[in-house]
């Protein structure tokens, strides 16, 4: 029997090989095909002609309606990020500082339930809640706060709430470990030096937790601008965001070159922000060492 000798340096690559192959086959190659399509010429009726032209890109970047879609997407991303940050930071703080591990794991479980629920179920849940005859409107009417049902559904506000619900865990799980890494004695030292709770938060806790805030915010923003199902189901036909626009181009009017070009633009934004997130996490490493 012969024994095959594997050089030690090859071992990590061998272990990574299956997942790398899978990613290359089902992720990298479709993206590469889309990248190539984005330079093709489109003909009405779904035809496309192989070429190397930039007109798909210039068409998007010079048209105010298309730029409006990009703007809507960014505004949606900022709103969802802001809501997640406002709801998530206090939650992350209380979970990081609780002395009871049982309370922490219970809190994390509740937090993660939306992630474990199918996007369809979650979105239809919101459809029921937000409908004009739904529980929220009925409660508002019963309390006399409004005279007639509010239009909650198929509006950007509904999309913000629904996305914030599912993306909140990403924010909390980015901030919580950073807060846990802050020595509680730092807050006590600050208090002993005469700083009240608000000053202590502003001067010590907040600055030291910024790497987590940056990482969580970028993650939530990226996931929001690339979300498709929730904006489509909860936002309805009136919500114009990049992902829905791309879908309509590719599968609605069969303009694959244009859809591909818009996909590439969205991908560029996402890659840029992911790179920034990596930088923020590096910053956390430096902060933690101090």
């Amino acid at each position, binding site marked *: 029997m012969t024994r095959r000798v594997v050089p030690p340096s090859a071992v990590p690559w061998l272990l990574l090989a299956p997942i790398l192959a899978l990613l290359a086959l089902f992720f990298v190659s479709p993206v590469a095909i889309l990248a190539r399509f984005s330079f093709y010429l489109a003909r009405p009726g779904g035809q496309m002609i192989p070429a190397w032209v930039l007109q798909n890109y210039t068409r998007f970047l010079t048209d105010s309606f298309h730029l409006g879609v990009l703007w809507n997407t960014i505004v949606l991303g900022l709103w969802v990020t802001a809501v997640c940050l406002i709801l998530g930071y206090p939650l992350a703080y209380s979970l990081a500082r609780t002395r009871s591990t049982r309370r922490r794991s219970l809190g994390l479980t509740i937090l993660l339930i939306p992630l474990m629920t199918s996007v369809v179920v979650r979105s239809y849940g919101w459809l029921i809640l937000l409908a004009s005859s739904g529980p929220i409107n009925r409660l508002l009417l019963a309390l006399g706060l409004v005279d007639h049902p509010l239009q909650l559904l198929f509006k950007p506000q509904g999309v913000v709430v629904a996305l914030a619900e599912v993306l909140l865990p990403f924010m909390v799980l980015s901030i919580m470990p950073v807060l846990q890494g802050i020595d509680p004695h730092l807050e*006590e030292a600050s208090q002993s030096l005469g700083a009240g709770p608000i000053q202590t938060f502003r001067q010590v806790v907040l600055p030291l937790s910024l790497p987590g805030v940056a990482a969580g915010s970028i993650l939530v923003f990226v996931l929001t601008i690339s979300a498709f199902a929730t904006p489509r189901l909860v936002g309805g036909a009136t919500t114009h965001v990049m992902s829905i626009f791309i879908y309509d181009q590719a599968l609605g009017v069969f303009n694959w070159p244009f859809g591909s070009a818009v996909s590439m633009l969205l991908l560029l934004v996402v890659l840029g922000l992911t790179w920034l997130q990596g930088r923020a996490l590096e910053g956390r490493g430096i902060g933690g060492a101090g």
Partner: protein
Amino acid sequence: MSQLILKGVRKSFGKTVAVHDFDLEVAQGEFVALLGPSGCGKTTTLRVVAGFERPDAGEVRIRGESATDKPPYRRDIGIVFQSYALFPHMTVLDNVAYGLRMRKVPRGECRERVRTALQLVHLERLDDRYPRQLSGGQQQRVAVARAVVIRPSVLLFDEPLSNLDARLRQEMRRELRQLQRSLRIATIFVTHDQEEALSMADRVVVMNAGRIEQVGTPEEIYARPASPFVLAFIGECNILPGTISAVEGERGVFAAASGAKLRLPPGPAVRPGTPGTLAIRPEDLLLLTAEQVTPPGCNELTGTVTTVTYLGSVCHYQIRAESGDSLLVYEQGGRGRRVAEGISVRVAWRAELATFRPEAAGEGGA
């Protein structure tokens, strides 16, 4: 006037009582060490003074004013933590200036006071460094400067030296003591290291299981331990069990369980038959070889040297007495003699240096 008064302070966590009815007064400029094994409640007591823990009962008074209901940031205290707790995102200068900025001290005065504080701890050249760029000893100094720059009424130390290496710890002991003397701030120093407590403090509070075992000067604590716990916790001690066999005049005669008959120091009358223990410090024992004469008025046991531990300035001998007792003897080392293992020796001590404790009293004191 006392800068700090603790009256009947009690604190429990769930069912565990961390501190029982604790009373203490610390005068202006006084250095008090809280000494005890881990979990004895010394750190909890410190945290009650700082305001990080609310006592279940009792009162904390700082400068004559009740502070029990005040939050930490209104208590006018300086605290140095074991981990130093320097703000990692601030320079040395900003760390030290933090308390002054919170007190809205004018800029010029602030700069002047920070400079003085950094000079006090010999760090004036490092004010633009970040804590992670400093050694452990330097971080410790910054923490001290940050705590004293606000001129607190009470200065608190929570095991501040335990993260330093032995040599640096010795140096910092002296330095902290000097600093505290020159600033004359009432100070509480929590430690489990008896050497630290004995060498630095004006008064030592020995704690065990949430209670005060003894309060006294370092000399009192060491020479006249008030309870068996203090005796066992502070320094080494030879303890011989036995009973009082007879009383001759003012003195009792102690019969060790091993059979040896030993004279007791003159003291309160004890009745023959009283069981108890005889305690004597290793450094009070004399090691005598065959050619040496026993000084008058001494008890004496014969035995053999079993182990010798030479430590430079001192030498430790473990002696197995013929009676069966095991005795530890400390002798001056240095250039002195070194008795070899296996040599027959006599161990002698002046009767006055030993303490007899009747068994009943021993149980009551624990």
